[in-house]
């Protein structure tokens, strides 16, 4: 039996959990405000997390692209117009006040990145945007840029350290308990304020574009100490991720190609099925509608053998496809997808359609926050992916990276200010010994299901009950399966007794977090009896603004789940009334019109 020891505690003013786009930006700002900051990450800085995987754009309004960045943006755009697009394409669930802050502050935040040395490699217009707003700064470069700033400011970072629970006494949060993965030691991290910058729980689904770490740890921990979450029913899927060959599973079909090239999405009959969903924009529609359409083709038996749909160049003469690599600027030139050279797969791709399927990509909802990134739990702040209000039911392309910078800085500022106003309290309680007991119990050789089996069951439930297209019967089945699985969590059988980088132990702890988040998703999906944005209900296929123009707020405390509805407030974008066909968001304005 391995010994689990507790290291001497570490103290700071502001504890930042997550160190990539959002967390790094929050840590930098909190330090600028004079706070003593400690940042902690499950992986390593700029070598883990979602930011570095964003191989696309960071968006600001097109007028600022012209005025602040000196590129050919459109003078007709404005932060207000950008905000209107976000609210409409988010299917009206976003918090209009937060969105206005987002688009107003975006240019200054992105300019900072360039001033800190991040390279701007191009700009373009992505689907759903009325104007070209996509500044192309590779996510990996953003991560490296922010890492340099952390280093320059000598902000201490604990790498390879997984936070397990927040230190909370019912009156607020003051720190966390963490597992140092290289040694298996538990750490007590005491702080006056905590910022969660931990992202979503995409890894609960079988096909994902997100990295390994995104298991909903922050969301689950926050919920366990009473934090309210909303828009949990809208995990975002990208319609076109490779399903074959195995090495490419979950790799995004080169975004620029699907956006800029006339690539056709086909079902197994060769029908260009998007014509039934968005006859004008076809594949150029937003990603929520593309994903719903693909999921319906697959569900109704018109998909590919591996459970996807097809992307085809067949409408282009083959000797033209030969030149396709030259049609795009920047890193598309060599047919790269992430770090993959797709060139090696080109002989097949020239001959055949590409098999792709929707993959879980991003968390549109999450913790309910104020404009100062405060959650409803005192001392707990949150920003970036895993917070709600910015994207509503669907995120516009390019806003994930913008979100990291705008809201990371706001969280850092607010948490530093809060930390000045409170003293460290002694939140000893039993949480530390409870957590230690939990880890020891997992290592004690239980005879329950294996960690891998539990993870596979979580993914089965996610795929069958809360994939893109849902209905009451399978949602109810999902809740029941979640409940059975919950009973087995404590008896997960961890075979590996070595505490050093014990992958099984980490997965066992992550399984609990994923299951908590999955239950919130399932409960919210069951409650929302309509189809909107990233969620399609087969039994309620219309978008019902009369009944469902509200945020479903979920809380999970002491084993009890509660749901309440908060009406969306109309501020500067008029809210629709009545009912409409799914996908018809109205108020759309294309620059070409």
């Amino acid at each position, binding site marked *: 039996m391995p010994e689990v020891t507790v290291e001497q505690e*570490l*103290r700071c003013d502001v504890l930042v959990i997550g*160190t990539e786009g959002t967390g790094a930006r929050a840590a930098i700002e909190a330090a600028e405000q004079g706070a003593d900051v*400690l940042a902690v990450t499950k*992986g*390593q*800085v700029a*070598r*883990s*997390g979602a930011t*570095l*995987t964003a191989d696309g754009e960071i968006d600001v309004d097109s007028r600022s692209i012209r005025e602040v960045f000196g590129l050919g943006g459109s003078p007709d755009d404005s932060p207000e117009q950008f905000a209107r697009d976000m609210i409409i394409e988010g299917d009206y669930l976003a918090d209009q006040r937060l969105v206005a802050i987002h688009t107003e502050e975006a240019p200054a935040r992105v300019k900072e990145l360039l001033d800190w040395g991040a390279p701007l490699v191009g700009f373009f217009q992505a689907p759903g945007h009325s104007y070209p707003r996509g500044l192309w700064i590779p*996510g*990996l470069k953003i991560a*490296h840029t922010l*890492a*340099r700033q*952390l*280093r320059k400011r*000598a*902000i*201490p*970072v*604990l*790498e*390879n*350290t997984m936070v397990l629970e927040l230190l909370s006494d019912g009156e607020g949060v003051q720190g966390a308990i963490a597992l*140092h993965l*290289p040694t298996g*030691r538990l*750490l007590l991290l005491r702080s006056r304020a905590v910022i969660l910058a931990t992202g979503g729980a995409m890894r609960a689904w079988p096909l994902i574009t997100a*990295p*390994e*770490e995104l298991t909903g740890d922050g969301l689950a921990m926050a919920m366990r100490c009473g934090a309210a979450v909303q828009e949990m029913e809208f995990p975002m899927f990208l319609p076109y991720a490779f399903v*074959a*060959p*195995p*090495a*490419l599973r*979950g*790799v995004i079909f080169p975004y620029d190609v699907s956006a800029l090239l006339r690539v056709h999405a086909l079902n197994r009959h060769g029908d260009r099925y998007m014509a039934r969903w968005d006859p004008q924009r076809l594949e150029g529609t937003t990603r929520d509608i593309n994903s719903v359409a693909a999921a319906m083709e697959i569900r109704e038996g018109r998909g590919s053998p591996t459970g996807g749909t097809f992307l085809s160049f067949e409408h282009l003469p083959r000797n033209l496809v030969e030149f396709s690599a030259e049609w795009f600027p920047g890193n598309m030139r060599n047919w790269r*997808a*992430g*770090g*993959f050279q797709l060139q090696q797969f080109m002989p*097949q791709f020239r001959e055949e359609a590409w*098999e792709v399927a929707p993959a879980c990509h991003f968390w549109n909802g999450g913790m309910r926050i104020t404009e100062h990134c405060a959650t409803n739990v005192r001392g707990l702040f949150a920003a970036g992916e895993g917070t709600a209000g910015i994207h509503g039911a669907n995120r516009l392309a390019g806003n994930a990276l913008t979100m990291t910078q705008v809201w990371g800085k706001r969280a850092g500022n607010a948490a530093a200010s809060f930390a000045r106003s409170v003293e460290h309290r002694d939140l000893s309680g039993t949480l530390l010994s409870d957590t230690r007991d939990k880890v020891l119990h997992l290592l004690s050789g239980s005879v329950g299901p*294996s*960690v*891998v089996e539990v993870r596979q069951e979580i993914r089965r439930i996610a795929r069958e009950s809360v994939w893109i297209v849902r209905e009451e019967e399978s949602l109810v089945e999902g809740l029941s399966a979640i409940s059975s699985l919950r009973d087995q969590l404590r008896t997960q059988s*961890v*075979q*590996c*007794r*070595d505490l*050093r*980088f*014990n*992958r*099984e132990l980490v997965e066992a702890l992550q399984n609990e977090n994923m299951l908590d988040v999955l239950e919130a998703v399932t409960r919210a999906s069951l409650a929302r009896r309509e189809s909107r944005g990233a969620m399609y209900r087969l039994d309620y296929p219309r978008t019902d603004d009369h009944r469902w123009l509200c945020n479903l707020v979920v809380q999970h405390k002491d084993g009890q789940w509660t749901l309440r509805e908060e009406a969306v407030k109309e501020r500067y974008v008029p809210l629709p009334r009545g009912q409409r066909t799914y996908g018809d968001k109205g108020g759309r304005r294309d620059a070409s019109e």
Partner: protein
Amino acid sequence: MPRSEPRVITVRIRRGAGQENELATYQVPVEAGVSVLGVLLHIYDHLDTTLAFHCSCRIGLCSACLVRVNGKVVRACTTLADDNMLIEPYKDAARIRDLAAELPSLVGYSGRLHEVRR
């Protein structure tokens, strides 16, 4: 994509901590076009859950899955698997256990506890 029946490949992995040099041999069924990372994940999921290794983005960007395959340092996720592979930690000095190593930190404090304790 043309599909082929899974074949079984032989994979040797250098296991242990520090300088330990225990070679474990696995027989792994693979489809055509599987990556080295896919092989490691298969071993962990189906054959041996005690194997320590890292991965994060799985698309060739983060470098968390650096390993040495037949003597050459590569990213496990973007390298296609082959029969008779020898997989080792990317660098012995950075190794914690099996294939899991700490990469050089890009921030000043490398995550070692004594450096952040005040």
